[in-house]
């Protein structure tokens, strides 16, 4: 069946059909990257001087000293863990109704826009900025941290939850609606089972993020292990700082493994 008129070559159609547009985009990107690289004014001499300085700085972290500041570290750690857990629980509690309200397929228009703007507000402020404002509002300490992390959790969890609800398979909810179920029953039977694994997974992930963030916002005065770390660095006690960093890494790794284990279990 080798017809005479059949073409023998075939290549996949390009992503951008217009050849002129395609070539000028490629050329433009190459030129921009070259210009940008050329504009980086690297001072090689300064870099060479900096290397031993950096080595000295890093070596001050060794050996890590867990002992001399242990009571401070312990207190900071407990504060951080408390802050993490409470803010995650409160954050989830707030995120679930907001997330449901921000899903286009289950909420009326005006609720949708209201909830979306809460999420947008929460997402547009970085944790540190929120922490600075809240420290100014409620004073130094873990309360500011707790409020910051609760607020930040909404932007993360409610947004991803809403997107998950919007992507559900509509057939089961339709069937539940057809039984004469009320709106809340419909959410409970038609929607919730489909998003539950993801909600649990995201919550575990957020717990992990909130712990890491608690270390960061402590630096601007929101309490916890971050405050302890900041104090250690301010006092040039780099060996204690190294101990704190190692503990943070260990806890983050631990929560990483346990959360991925839990996520696998609920699939």
């Amino acid at each position, binding site marked *: 069946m080798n017809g005479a008129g059949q073409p023998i070559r075939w290549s996949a159609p390009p992503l951008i059909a217009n050849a002129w547009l395609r070539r000028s985009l490629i050329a433009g990107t190459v030129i921009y990257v070259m210009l940008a690289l050329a504009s980086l004014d690297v001072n090689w001499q300064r870099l060479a001087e900096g290397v031993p300085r950096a080595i000295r700085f890093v070596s001050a972290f060794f050996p890590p000293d867990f002992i001399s500041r242990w009571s401070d570290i312990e207190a900071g750690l407990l504060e951080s863990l408390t802050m993490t857990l409470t803010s995650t629980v409160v954050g989830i509690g707030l995120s679930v109704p907001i997330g449901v309200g921000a899903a286009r397929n289950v909420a009326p228009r005006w609720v949708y826009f209201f909830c979306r703007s809460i999420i947008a507000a929460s997402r547009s402020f970085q944790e540190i900025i929120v922490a600075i404002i809240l420290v100014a509002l409620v004073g130094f300490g873990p309360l500011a941290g707790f409020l910051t992390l609760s607020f930040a959790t909404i932007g993360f969890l409610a947004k991803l939850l809403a997107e998950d609800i919007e992507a559900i398979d509509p057939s089961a909810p339709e*069937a539940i609606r*057809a*039984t004469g179920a009320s709106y809340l029953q419909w959410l409970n*039977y038609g929607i919730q089972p489909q998003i*539950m694994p993801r909600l649990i997974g995201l919550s575990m992930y957020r717990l992990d993020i909130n712990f890491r963030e608690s270390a960061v916002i402590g630096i601007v005065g929101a309490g916890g292990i971050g405050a302890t770390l900041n104090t250690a660095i301010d006092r040039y006690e780099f060996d204690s700082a190294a101990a704190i960093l190692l503990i943070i890494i260990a806890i983050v790794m631990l929560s990483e493994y346990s959360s991925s284990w839990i996520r696998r279990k609920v699939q």
Partner: protein
Amino acid sequence: MSSHGTTLRLRALSKRYRTGDLALDRVDLDVPAGQVMALIGPSGAGKSTLIRCVNRLVEPTSGSIVLGSTDITGLTPRGLRRARQRMGMIFQEYALVERLTVMENVLSGQLGSVGFWRSYFRRFPEATVRQAFAMLERVGLSDHIDKRADALSGGQRQRVGIARALVQNPEILLVDEPTASLDPKTSRQIMRLVCELCAEHGLAAVINIHDVQLAQLFVQRIVGLRAGRVVFDGPPGELNADVLTEIYGEEDWTASLGGKQAASSAQAALEVEEERLAGLT
């Protein structure tokens, strides 16, 4: 559940989608109590729209729908929920809540008559639970009560869907392509089960179905829909090549009407079929 009279009455029912497509064009249809009716027609003829208009999963544009003596079109949200309880629906892709157990899926048929917290904690009234157990036994799923719905085969899932619809104690079943995702043997078993249950409970049913032969085997009346209009309405025996051409368009229909010699009496065809399947099962 009166054993005589009309269960469902549609008058000048029209549905125009926002895209401008006229899915239903002034459909008049009466379904007497206890009658199992098949709705056939090509894809896009409005079959699915028609049964979804009945329980207002799709809002009709104009016309009236009367179930028993209730005008469905003019109901408040609460009234609509109560009316939906009286109509059991069975779906093409089963539409089960995959991550819930078989029992939870069946009990969800009673959501309309229990309060939110009872349903939230799965504390359904004893009578409902007893009925659900009985219904699961009737459809042959007694061994799978606590399994998750997504652990079942296609035929088993559709049985759960049937049990869920029956637990509602409906007056009519709205059945949307019940066999489209099933193999031929399971399709027949499911159709037979639906029709038997309708007979046992004196239910009327509107069954959307693609498979004309299957419809002829099991139902008492066939309504053909084309482009939103009723173009055929009669007993299965009256279906012939001309009628099928009228509904679906030009095609060689001899194979689809294979059971035509027996189809003069649909009952005879049913018996032949049952005999053959007895050997299979």
